[in-house]
């Protein structure tokens, strides 16, 4: 029934594996949360396709601005719409789906109020939809990462509160015991807190002028580093031990790193404003925090790889492969973000595509791959049938991994090349422009690859949601050539 090889001997010591529950109890919980989780996943997959399509179009616009030459189709409008649809539509909705499956399962029970939670899903999606349309129509908030108008955040925070309250009210001590659950719970709380605080401060004009941008940067960075990244880490900490059937390599260290993570991750915001009209100490705090953050992130990545080391499932299990690849890219993205925060590097790469490249590694690479892994793990348990085709999973994995790395690398290289030219006073801005844009084609092609891979996934997802797949019992694994 499950992909997990559940080893009786390690059951007691397994972190975050929900060891106390019987298989029947777990299925009962799965059945209870199914409507909310499947709707969250289904809408998130729609957003994934739409956001990647918009992203491809905006990437094309960078080097071919005359394509689809309409006011509403300019880079300035497509880019925020694509980013918002990806972060809030795909990543956040799918992450909410993972949280509303994982935490009830670990607690062994579901809070009442599933109707309200479903209403929350509708509100959340309505908020994202409104935001995307508003951006394309020209209603843009000029704050990087929070371009959706206030009204759409009202809907989103409203919907989030309903879903999060439903999840958190069902929590008990055993539900928050494991590292996976700790990260997911922390992320869920922090997303609510930072989206609410940031938007209220901005909308009520409690902060004005540059401080408004500081609050915006803090909020937008919170969405990435206090929500999407910790949810992803939580998913890894749940799935890796579960699939390999082993306890976490160093759980106590993992706990210490958990606290260090949340201590640092909230301080990254001002990196987006480095060099700007903000207090220098604030930028230094953010830069130091992004370097210090390497300890908990790389520590967690090491912990996960050490847990999975030598496991047979490494080659066969799609969930494990997706999740570990995502963890690896999370390490890459946090290294990139720390590198870009170093003051001398920042002087040249700031205002180039470098930051977008790091975000591509983070969002398309790390977060998305880990969420894909989670969906591959969760959906068979909800729909009662296994994924139809391991070939489709392979296409998805290769395309998504290659596209994310290629897109990220192109933008990082573009940033480094144009940045180093920009810091030479003798270069003209036209030269800087030409150097940077040499890589834009690669970025557009990467988006094309991603879109094909994501379409394969969307099709596969639709099939499993409609219960078209392999009969339940044997998980769909990658085929392995058995040579010897």
């Amino acid at each position, binding site marked *: 029934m499950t992909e997990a090889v559940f080893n009786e001997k390690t059951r007691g010591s397994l972190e975050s594996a929900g060891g106390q529950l019987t298989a029947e109890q777990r299925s009962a919980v799965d059945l209870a949360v199914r409507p909310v989780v499947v709707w969250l996943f289904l809408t998130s997959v729609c957003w994934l396709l739409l956001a990647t399509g918009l992203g491809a179009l905006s990437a094309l616009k*960078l080097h071919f601005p005359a394509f689809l030459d309409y006011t509403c189709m*300019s880079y300035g409008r497509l880019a925020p719409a694509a980013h918002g649809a990806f972060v809030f539509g795909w990543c956040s909705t799918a992450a909410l789906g993972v949280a509303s499956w994982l935490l009830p399962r670990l607690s062994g029970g579901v809070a009442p109020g599933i109707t309200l939670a479903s209403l929350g899903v509708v509100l959340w999606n309505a908020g994202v939809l409104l935001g995307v349309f508003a951006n394309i129509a020209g209603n843009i908030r000029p704050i990087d990462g929070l371009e959706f108008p206030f009204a759409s955040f009202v809907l989103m925070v409203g919907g989030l509160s309903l879903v999060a309250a439903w999840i958190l009210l069902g929590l008990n001590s055993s539900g928050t015991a494991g590292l996976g659950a700790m990260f997911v719970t922390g992320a869920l709380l922090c997303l609510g807190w930072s989206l609410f605080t940031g938007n209220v401060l901005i909308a009520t004009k409690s902060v004005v002028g540059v401080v408004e941008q*500081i609050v915006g940067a803090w909020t937008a960075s919170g969405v990435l580093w*206090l929500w999407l990244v910790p949810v992803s880490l939580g998913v890894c900490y749940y799935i890796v031990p579960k699939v390999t059937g082993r306890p976490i390599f160093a759980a106590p260290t993992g706990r210490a790193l958990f606290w260090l993570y949340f*201590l640092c991750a909230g301080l990254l915001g001002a990196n987006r404003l480095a060099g*700007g009209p903000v207090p220098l100490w604030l930028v230094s*705090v953010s830069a130091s925090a992004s370097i210090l953050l390497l300890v908990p992130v790389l520590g967690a990545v090491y912990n996960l790889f050490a847990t999975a080391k030598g496991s047979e499932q490494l080659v066969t299990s799609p969930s494990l492969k997706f999740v570990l690849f995502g963890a690896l890219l999370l390490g890459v993205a946090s290294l990139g973000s720390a590198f870009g925060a170093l003051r001398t590097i920042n002087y040249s790469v700031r*205002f180039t595509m470098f930051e977008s490249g790091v975000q591509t590694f983070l969002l398309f690479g790390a977060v998305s791959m880990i969420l894909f892994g989670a969906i591959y793990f969760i959906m068979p348990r909800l729909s009662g049938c296994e994924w139809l085709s391991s070939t489709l999973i392979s296409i998805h994995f290769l395309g998504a991994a290659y596209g994310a790395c290629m897109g990220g690398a192109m933008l990082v290289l573009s940033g480094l090349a144009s940045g180093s030219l920009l810091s030479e006073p003798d270069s003209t801005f036209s030269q800087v422009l030409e150097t940077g844009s040499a890589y834009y084609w690669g970025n557009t092609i990467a988006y094309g690859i991603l879109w094909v891979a994501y379409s394969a996934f969307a099709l596969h997802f639709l099939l499993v949601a409609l219960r078209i797949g392999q009969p339940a019992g044997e998980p769909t694994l990658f085929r392995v050539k058995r040579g010897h």
Partner: protein
Amino acid sequence: MSRSSTLFAGLAACFALSLGLCVLLPQAQLGSLSPDFKEEDGRITEVYPTLTGGIAAAGREVYISQGCQACHSQVVRGAETTDMERGWGVRRTVARDYLFENPPVLGVRRIGPDLANVGAQGWRNEPADDTARPAKRDSTWHFLHLYHPTAIIKVSNMPAYKGLFQLRKITGAPSLDALALPAEMAPPEGFEVVPKAEAKSLVAYLLSLNRSHPLKEAGAVAVAAKKN
């Protein structure tokens, strides 16, 4: 204390630290800034910055709604970068420059040049001795550039904002606003291209952008000005 309440309390403490350090402290430091006044004989002679009003304020809305901030910053950094040497400003910009902007359109990327001072006399985006450098970046220059960027800058990847202009039949005398377009993009005989109200306010906004008023906290005006 149970495990989950420790978790909640710890997370709340982390969040409070982040809020305090990254939101409340900057607000305490910058939240009560006031404009810079110059007094002579007990009378205020100069105030900087002032609230942008009228057509330029409407132009700011056009700027934001067209998404200009996706490719243009409005931030001049200090002498450790080449921002000033490129002609984008004579001093670095500071928090006081953005006092009446809610929020300031700082921007995050420079796919195009920085525009913090694009309305200032000495602003340039070419080397000071470049022959391609326009004599003046006035409204005529901006209208043509918005209508067809590559007509002026060959390698530009800025979209042509033709939607901000109107192609209309000349009735009676040609309009004074009509763009003087090069032959290859000129409208058909009897027609003219005129800026719509949005284009006019956008250009008024761009021409209003000038953050070169000396401020003591910005420093280094004289040194940078010499390089211009």
